[in-house]
């Protein structure tokens, strides 16, 4: 194997890991935002599925992937509004409500697909958007700067969300409300409004994650996400609720997937061990979770509905 070929394979593996990490990153950023405000949403995967179908169907009709993204986000925002209503106004138990959202999304996305599409038809995926100058760089260019726009959006959201959480009053409100909503309320910060906004934006990101997946793959089918949303929730714990941590978690997960895939392609992993190797990303994530997450504390008010004077 020549050196240049080896470099090419490494580049392809890393680029693949980044692509695989992207939907996880979007979904877990959204989940992290919700959890920082004290609301757990186990329905991420269902929101992703509905966002994915909405985006897929939109692109199928309009042939414009950007409309697809918008529809995916909008579906997420709407579900966020609904989820806010049941968990904040009705104060439903968050774990069960989230599973309800998941099952709803899983079933409805398939039903809509059967009803409106039927036989899978491909849609036009995003074309890679080469970043001028940077994409021309040797090695790094292909690795980092020849992705579709959604990859840049996802990774661009990481510093943006860090900034919002730590440098804006809105971020301060979210951090306070996830830890001690009474304190925030006593100073006139609206717990309800802040949590609503965090849930709505968080679900919007989950919808975007689903849309990104469907458009990137150019197809929809039943259970397209394959439980990605649940992995995304695990990655929030892995990343200790920080955007950067969540990004590292998503990248680790994506990279392990792509490395295992590459090793299988070249027969480094014998075919007999192939199924074991397929578990590697999950196993590594769980191990990291056990080691890393033990040292961090989850938002104190997570899953606890807030009632004034209660």
């Amino acid at each position, binding site marked *: 194997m020549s050196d240049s070929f080896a470099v*090419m*394979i490494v580049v*392809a*593996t890393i680029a*693949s890991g980044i*692509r*695989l990490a992207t*939907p996880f990153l979007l979904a877990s950023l959204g989940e992290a935002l919700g959890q920082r405000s004290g609301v757990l949403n186990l329905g991420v995967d269902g929101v992703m599925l509905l966002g994915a179908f909405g985006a897929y169907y939109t692109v199928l009709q309009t042939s414009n992937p950007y409309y697809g993204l918008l529809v995916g986000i909008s579906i997420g925002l709407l579900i966020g509004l609904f989820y806010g209503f049941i968990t904040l106004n009705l104060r439903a138990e968050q774990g069960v409500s989230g599973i309800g959202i998941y099952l709803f999304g899983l079933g409805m996305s*398939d039903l809509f*697909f*059967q009803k409106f599409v*039927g*036989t*899978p*038809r*491909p849609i036009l*995926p995003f074309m890679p958007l080469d970043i001028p100058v940077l994409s021309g760089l040797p090695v790094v260019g292909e690795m980092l700067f020849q992705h579709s726009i959604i990859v840049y959006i996802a990774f661009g959201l990481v510093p943006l969300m860090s900034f919002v959480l730590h440098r804006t009053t809105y971020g301060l409100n979210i951090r306070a409300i996830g830890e001690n909503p009474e304190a925030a309320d006593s100073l006139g910060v609206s717990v309800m409004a802040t949590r609503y906004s965090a849930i709505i934006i968080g679900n919007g990101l989950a919808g975007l994650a689903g849309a990104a*997946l469907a458009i*990137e*793959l*150019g*197809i929809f*089918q*039943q*259970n*397209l996400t*394959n439980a*990605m949303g649940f992995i995304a929730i695990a990655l929030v714990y892995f990343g200790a609720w920080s955007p950067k941590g969540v990004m590292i978690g998503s990248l680790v997960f994506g990279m392990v*997937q*792509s490395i295992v*895939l*590459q090793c*299988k*392609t*070249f*027969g480094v992993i014998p*075919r007999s061990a*192939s*199924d074991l*190797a*397929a*578990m590697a990303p999950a196993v590594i994530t769980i191990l990291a979770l056990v080691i890393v997450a033990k040292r961090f504390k989850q938002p104190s008010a997570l899953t606890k509905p807030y009632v004034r004077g209660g």
Partner: protein
Amino acid sequence: MKKFSLSLSAVMLTLLLLCPSLLPASGKPLRVAIIAPSAQNDLAFTQSIVDGIKAIQKDREIDLAITDGTFVVEDAAAAIRDYAKKGYDLVIAHGSQYGGSLKEIAPDFPDIAFAWGTAADTFGLPNVSSYEAASDEGGYVMGVMAAAMSKKGGVGVVGPIEVGDAKLYVDGFVQGAKAQNSKIRAKVNYIGSFSDVALAAEAARAHIAAGADVLTGTAQMVVGAIGAARSKRVAWFGTQANQTELAPEIVVASQVYKWEVILKQILADMDNGVKGGKMYDINLANNGIVIKFNDAYKLAPGVKEAGMKAIAGIKDGSIKTGHK
């Protein structure tokens, strides 16, 4: 039926056992149920069996019930039992992962005929038949053509888990490719999942990066791989259904299953009072397997001919593939 208590169901079951005359007499429409893991219009595994029954419906009145999308085995098991309780004449569990459930359920309903596939095991039960496709034969033909058309000397396969129909097809494909060109680099990647579309897409990209210019793959998650192949303009061979629609610009040919061939045999055996215990298979020779070419795809001269030669060789027995 679900409203009845368990004991009540047991009583009814005993009644059914004691009085075979209560069973629907022949002449009435045959009641057939299909339980399948993915959507019935998936352009792949599940659609193939549904299309098979529908082909028979043209000649014979069949009351058909379909429960699709049961990728959770427990859900499928519940559906199988439910149809058996409802007294369907033939319950088809279309997925090798359902074998364990069927083995438990079938003995409870000795008067119902069960069929499952793709597999070659009836568990020694008199009311279970199994069916499979000699997908290695179609795989072999595809492999021959893939090797014949590869310019870079590399072909790639995206598989789910190394079992059943997928294994047969993949092994046949590799065998055919090597037979055509002993120097071909034929790489196989079992991604470890039947449903991870994103991973299948990346597996296809990995093959392309590693120097493959013709790809194939099997199971329902390959839609991702087809999408990736399409964006890189790499040729694709399909299986289990005609995949031309998914990517007309890259699909060369598809191996298509005509399950009606063996379903007819099973129904005929049932008419003669045989409820199971037999194994069936579709292959090139019995026209249960056909190769559908995408006419829009411009093939280099000699490729199709090599394929047709392989088909003829398999049919007359001069070429032996892995199966049997």
